[in-house]
């Protein structure tokens, strides 16, 4: 996957409906549900035994950077716009995952030896995105700072989301992935269809790491 270098200001790129994004090639990712056996409690494994996990099966990803910020444009179909907790569902969500050390396993959200970093967005806080760090299933923690900005739009059964973070975050080493133009990192994605009760480990994810290269 290439994060295309674009000569545009971040404000323009933050608009999920901006026509500039159409010039960035998209990669369609096949998403799969997280395996039932890896859900960390017997209650969850029983409650979801007969329910489909990971309703969103396709995610269109466009990655770009402008030398200042790294941005992801995510687009996926979701018939229902779910943005709060007041009913039986949960807010829709999306996440971008990176290893903090090279060999972090994806399926277990990292491990004790190898942490992962996620940019995590939920529709109930549409312009805030959390920077989280995990070392295994059930250990996700928000970092104190999050420099990730989000803009989203739900229209006609489709979510469009832009997540953006400055390239330079040297003061957050160990908490968030360090990237630079010309460099590369592994990346993975997750989407939660909140209306179906998806949250926590009940989600669709991109099943394997991809190599993301930032155009030099």
């Amino acid at each position: 996957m290439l994060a295309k270098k674009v000569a545009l200001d971040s404000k323009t790129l933050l608009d999920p409906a901006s026509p500039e994004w159409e010039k960035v090639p998209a990669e369609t990712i096949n998403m799969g549900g997280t395996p039932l056996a890896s859900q960390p409690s017997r209650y969850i494994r029983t409650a979801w035994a007969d329910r489909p996990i990971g309703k969103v099966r396709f995610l269109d990803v466009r990655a770009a950077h402008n030398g200042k910020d790294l941005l992801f444009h995510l687009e996926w179909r979701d018939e229902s716009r779910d943005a709060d907790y007041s009913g039986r569902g949960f807010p829709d969500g999306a996440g971008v995952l990176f290893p903090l050390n090279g060999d972090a396993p994806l399926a277990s959200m990292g491990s004790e030896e190898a942490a992962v970093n996620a940019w995590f967005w939920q529709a109930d806080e549409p312009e805030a995105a959390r920077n989280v760090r995990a070392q295994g299933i059930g250990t996700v923690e928000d970092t104190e700072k999050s420099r990730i900005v989000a803009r989203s739009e739900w229209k006609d059964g489709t979510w469009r989301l832009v997540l953006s973070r400055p390239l330079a975050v040297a003061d957050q080493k160990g908490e968030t992935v360090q990237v630079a133009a010309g460099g590369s990192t592994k990346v993975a994605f997750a989407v939660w269809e909140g209306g179906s009760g998806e949250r926590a480990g009940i989600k669709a994810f991109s099943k394997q790491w991809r190599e993301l290269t930032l155009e030099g």
Partner: protein
Amino acid sequence: MIMVPKDELMKSDRQVAMVFDLNKCVGCQTCSVACKVLWMRDEGMDYQWWCTVNTQPGRGHPRDYENMGGGYRDGVPFPGIRPTREEWGGGWDFNYDEVFYSGKGPSVYLKPLGEPPTWGPNWDEDQGGGEYPNSFFFYLPRLCNHCTRPICIEACPRNAMYKRKEDGIVLRDETRCRGYQFCLEACPYKKVYFNYVKKVSQHCILCYPRIEKGVAPACARQCPGRLVFVGYLDDKNGPIHKLVNEWEVALPLHPEYGTIPNMFYIPPLAPYRLNDDGSIDESTPRIPIEYLERLFGSRVNKALDILKAEMAKARRKEQSELMDMLIVYKWRELFKPFDRDPAELQWK
């Protein structure tokens, strides 16, 4: 961060338990208000009532919670749903400014702002069941049962809930909670609440800061009806052990939910039925036994018989240890060893 094994989180060495004598509860709500004003003053807690007193028969709080699943059936987790905000109800803001300060006089009256309410923590109060003159109801105080098999703890994928070793109180770490609400789904009693502002679960903490200082929980201590016993379940000299394990008149609510609750109820005796001609039918209690069996299981029959037999003994002026215990001549004996006066405490 190492994930502690689940069964470690669910075990305790001792258990603080409570017994509620439903023959004495008049539904005054002092307990629910005592709890509310003590613990639920933060943002997002406006609609929460960790202790509620509902009229039975009734739909309860949240509405129809007994149809929301959760708990275990035959040892297997039984999937549940979490209540919607509307099914909890309550948490209303009122038009105080308009009533007191707008100068509109008696043309306005106190009422909730916004949409007309559809449910609340005590919505069907005193409606009860049956047909006049044989209508019936009783009051049922409910709070977190601090269960011995707490499925809320089992359900949480982040191990944010745990049971204290020293007293079995089920607590949660709000910094670990991320609002997934599997605990709300899993609790069959629906006594875990969700703070919609902070996005974390919250529930009755059995006044553990008071328990640590030897003071009974607020609901128990403030009850004017002298109907709430507090103590360690294993204290063979205490009323909890005697009522639950020896006399067996104190029963768990919905034992079939399988979580082994530690809040117990002495089932309510009922007035006799009236025949059409106005005569009294002493053979049938007004509260149908099938209804009590639905709530407390078949053990309720024996419990009621024992209560009736001991009451008859006392009427005959014979000694009844059970009646002496339930009359509570000395109020402080409800709470041993948690009978300290909270006014004595110095909180640092």
